């Protein structure tokens, strides 16, 4: 219970009057219950409704998730099932990339994207995702290894090429691993603060994370209720996805055990 107390406190605070959130910090139950925090919060900031920020986040999350999951599946299949010269070398590169601190590449990437004129667009956040995520590749490889090779052989005898084996045999069987990766991708993109912070400077492009940060900057003490309400809204998709897919999440973590 101690674990969840902060979350419950947080949720309850979003229903309290702004002025009383801190004077009543010790009690959980709001008195009176206030819904206006949600109305005020949703109206947004700088003339942009919170709906805009949610839409932006969704566009980024959906496109990068589809890109990351699909490309990772291709790459995982290549590594797990096909023998080619230099495989060991590229595999090592991938594993090293997985351990690499993001901070090392963030500056040159920023310079690259600013030279390409991609600042203030979603491209710098989405495009790098289209080339596979080492964590997902690794997770999917582990999963492909549990699929019997006889299936590939049978499909080959039936005249399938490597490409159709991938699409017709492996990809459907890979569904649980695809789901796990998609969920993680969803979380990381949804929560991401540093990339939007660097690349997006126009409020109409802000993601949910950025919008909350902007709330924090501008409202400071005055309207905590709205701030809490929108924080709750921002967590809503995450929590819903968590409860629907928690089986996959728990499995995915125990298979590879990374991140967090």
């Amino acid at each position: 219970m101690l674990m969840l107390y902060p979350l419950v406190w947080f949720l309850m605070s979003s229903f309290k009057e702004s002025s009383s959130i801190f004077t009543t910090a010790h009690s959980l139950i709001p008195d009176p219950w206030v819904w206006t925090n949600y109305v005020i919060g949703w109206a947004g900031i700088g003339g942009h409704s919170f709906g805009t920020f949610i839409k932006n986040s969704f566009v980024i999350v959906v496109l990068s998730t589809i890109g990351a999951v699909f490309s990772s599946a291709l790459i995982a299949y290549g590594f797990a099932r096909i023998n080619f010269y230099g495989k060991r070398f590229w595999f090592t590169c991938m594993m090293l990339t997985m351990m690499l601190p993001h901070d090392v590449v963030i500056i040159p990437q920023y310079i690259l994207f600013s030279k390409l004129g991609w600042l203030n667009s979603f491209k710098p956040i989405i495009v790098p995702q289209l080339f596979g995520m080492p964590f997902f590749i690794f997770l999917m490889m582990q999963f492909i290894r549990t699929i019997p090779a006889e299936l590939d052989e049978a499909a080959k005898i039936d005249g399938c090429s490597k490409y159709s084996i991938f699409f017709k045999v492996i990809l459907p069987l890979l569904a649980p691993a695809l789901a796990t990766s998609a969920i993680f991708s969803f979380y990381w993109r949804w929560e991401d603060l540093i990339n939007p912070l660097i690349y997006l400077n126009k409020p109409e492009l802000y993601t949910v994370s950025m919008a909350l940060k902007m709330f924090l900057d501008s409202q400071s003490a005055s309207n905590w209720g709205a701030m809490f309400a929108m924080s709750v809204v921002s967590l809503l998709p995450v929590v819903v996805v968590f409860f629907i897919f928690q089986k996959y999440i728990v499995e995915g973590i125990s298979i590879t055990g990374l991140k967090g």
Partner: protein
Amino acid sequence: MSAVMGEGVDQMKLRTKYDNVAGYTFIAPFIIGFLCFTLIPILASFYLSFTDYDLFSSPQWIGLDNYKEMFFEDEKYWNSVKVTFYYVLAGVPLRLGVALFIAMLLNRDLQGIGIYRTLFYLPSIIGGSVAVAIMWRNLFGNDGAINALLFFLGVEQPIYWYQDPISALWTLIFLSAWQFGSPMLIFLAGLKNIPKTYYEAASVDGAHAGHRFFKITLPLLSPIILFNLVMQTIGAFMTFTPAYIISNGTGGPLDGTLLYSLYLFQQAFSFFHMGYASAMAWVMLAVIALLTLLLFKTSSYWVHYESKEE
């Protein structure tokens, strides 16, 4: 189907052994991405670390000046190193300790244990978000829930968590401990692999709980502890969002929460000292690589692999 018949067996073997075209087609996205977004950026960052570059005029080669300034002149830099090590050295063991403790609690066949497992994991999944950082900031605020709780427990004077560099840093450490979910799941998976008969045998021999923990659980779990230790250490070195949100981007009070990543971010994107920030990034890379290597090297003294003994 019968195309195979025409080809020599050797030739066919050769074809199935190496399929370069298909292999490279499938991993092409990785190679392109690796070159464009990892390898070239790393090399560029290495080059930039020897330059003075503000993004607007072209980079000026200044040799080792960035590194010299960092190591010998920049007090803020050393402070951020100190803060980061404090955070890692206090935070990672605390987080892993909590994770192991909870994993052991959950490693029982009780009804409904799955629900607890799920609920314990929830804070970790949302932990990286701005919303949680904001929540944390307010929990530890001067009139936040933590002080209200302490008052209830009889602590008369509220603790001003964010006015003292050390206690502000501890709020970040508590946050990281609160998100113990993913190491916990890995511990849990490891605990399940320890045969119950070991414990039974030990009980018969009269070993008490502490004995069983230190003589059976810890040694058999040590490979997993090593894995968690490496991953969590790397992760902790890169902590950014909570420090940024809780200190409002300043790393305050008195740079008490100025973690390395946050200072690097400030240098790069607030002051546009791209060369200096690149040098910082390279030092970070070297330190993380060294630490990882060190953990693996020393692991032979404390990690126990069952297969070796046989």
